[in-house]
């Protein structure tokens, strides 16, 4: 995946710019006389010259696929860099300029080969050879233009094939949608039938009660109740139902009713934005709020009970106080003697007035 992207980048890179090649060789000897130097397997013929910088790497344990066991890569631990100082017997000798670890025989060496500029031949080509060269160059140009034309022509069928494939895919997609729509319609019809049958069974199986509400002379609304089913029917068609404007902030529309993955029905209360699931109750603020709310209610209840108690007890205290007061007794006696009871002299006995 990612390497496909890398490969495309590399291809573009190679097409756009001339790329300097690298070559590899091996370390065949390691000399350490004050300064560590290495002898390489390559020499002038392979592009090594004095002054060329080489990188020494050590291959590690192969990276293998954990399932197939195929070798997918090789770790290369950097050992250091070296600079070629001389060529001895066709083999370059390089001095280490940066060392991460001690070089060993067999370590891999990477470098960019540099070849000395070749001497231009000053001999003039014969006329026949010049003609052949001219002819070959012309043929090369023809081949290049032919290849370009061929690419352009070959691109059209590919494009047409892609368009054809896309159309085929769209057609199959439309056919699938059509089939699904037909299936959905059939399912909807079956659901209606099931619902009607269920209503009939429920209404028929139990005692149905019927209430008719006369809205006006032309309008009768009939309510049929059977078990848990309530059927509302309008007998005359003069009843007009008007939609009541509902506050959109708190309205629960049918579109908000969604069926969740478990098959249960859940209502999304939209802008109310109250989520009464476990997380809501886990919040310390909510728990604290609930606690304080209960505490508040308890306080108010105590206040009401206390006030009521005080009223009742206050009245009782007043009554007791009045009853036990001495003035009350005297007044009572006076009133009893003077007002409440009179001596009925005519009858010779006391009678209550």
């Amino acid at each position: 995946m990612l390497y496909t992207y890398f490969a495309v980048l590399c291809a573009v890179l190679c097409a756009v710019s001339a790329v300097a090649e690298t070559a590899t060789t091996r370390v065949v000897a390691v000399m350490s006389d004050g300064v560590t130097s290495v002898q390489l397997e390559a020499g002038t013929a392979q592009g090594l010259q004095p002054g060329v910088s080489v990188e020494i790497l050590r291959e590690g344990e192969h990276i293998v696929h954990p399932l197939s066991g195929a070798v997918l890569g090789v770790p290369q631990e950097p050992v250091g860099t070296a600079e070629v100082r001389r060529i001895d017997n066709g083999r370059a000798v390089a001095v280490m300029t940066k060392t991460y670890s001690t070089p060993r025989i067999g370590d891999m060496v990477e470098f960019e080969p540099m070849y000395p500029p070749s001497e231009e031949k000053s001999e003039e080509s014969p006329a026949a050879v010049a003609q052949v060269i001219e002819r070959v160059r012309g043929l090369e140009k023809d081949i290049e233009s032919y290849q370009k034309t061929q690419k352009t022509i070959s691109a059209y069928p590919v494009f047409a094939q892609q368009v054809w494939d896309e159309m085929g895919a769209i057609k199959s997609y439309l056919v699938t949608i059509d089939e699904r729509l037909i299936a959905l319609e059939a399912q909807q019809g079956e659901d209606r039938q099931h619902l009607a049958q269920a209503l009939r069974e429920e209404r028929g199986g139990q005692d149905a009660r019927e209430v008719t509400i006369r809205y006006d002379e032309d309008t009768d609304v009939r309510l049929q109740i059977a078990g848990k089913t309530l059927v509302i029917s309008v007998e005359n068609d003069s009843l007009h139902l008007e939609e009541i404007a509902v506050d959109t902030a708190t309205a629960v529309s049918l579109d908000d009713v969604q069926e969740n993955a478990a098959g249960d029905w859940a209502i999304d209360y939209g802008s109310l934005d109250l989520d009464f699931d476990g997380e809501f109750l886990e919040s310390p603020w909510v728990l604290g709020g609930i606690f304080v709310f209960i505490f508040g209610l308890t306080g108010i209840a105590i206040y009401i009970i206390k006030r009521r108690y005080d009223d009742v007890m206050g009245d009782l205290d007043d009554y007791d106080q009045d009853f036990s007061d001495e003035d009350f007794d005297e007044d009572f006696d006076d009133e009893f003697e003077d007002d409440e009871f009179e001596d009925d002299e005519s009858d010779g006995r006391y009678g209550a007035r």
Partner: protein
Amino acid sequence: MASLTRRKTRSQWIGRLAGLLGCVCLLAAGAGLWFTSQRDPHIERQPVVMEADLRVHTVSAPARQAPNTVEAYYPLEVGRYWIYLRHDAVRGTTTEVERRIVRRERRDERDIYFFDDGTVAYREGEKVFEIDPEGGVNVVLADAPPPSDSYVYRSQGLHIEKEIGSRDTVLEAHSRRYENCIQVVTHFRRAEASEVMSYASYYSPGIGLVGREIWPRSGREPTEVLLAFGTRKL
């Protein structure tokens, strides 16, 4: 009589105090509910904008100690998923793609994790080896091995070098902020060529790869940005 009046007055005051306290508690409860509804942490996925938005900052002082283990920077567990927005500069396309670990298998005393796209990954030491279905190898490392502070390997004709750039990078991608990210700079070239391409990958602790961009930055869009992540478990 006077003591009775005082008692009555006292009890009335206690009752009023209890009522006032109840009202205060009710007000506090209402305020608490309102405050909770205001700070209700709804984690919603940002609307998908098909534009790879990535801002990278390198802070001078890390907020906290960043981990050095690759487990932290590339958590491997079944059910974990990442949704990326990939931008292909060559084709000019932007693709939203999900990567998900679907299986784990124990072989040769190591756990092998299988992704839904065919990639397999396993941990070895302080490195995670990620092998795509075409055989390309990507190595994720949280700490550069000494002495060269880089990890070099060759795969599919490519010479690849990984090195740790920085450990305290802060990334902002699609209104999310990732701190203490580790930056892994990858240099790669064809084995026989010397032209080197580089890209930087950013790994966030506990999350994994959160972004990838061409390195050094040239003002172009990043190649990969994390949109969402998480763990799906039954």
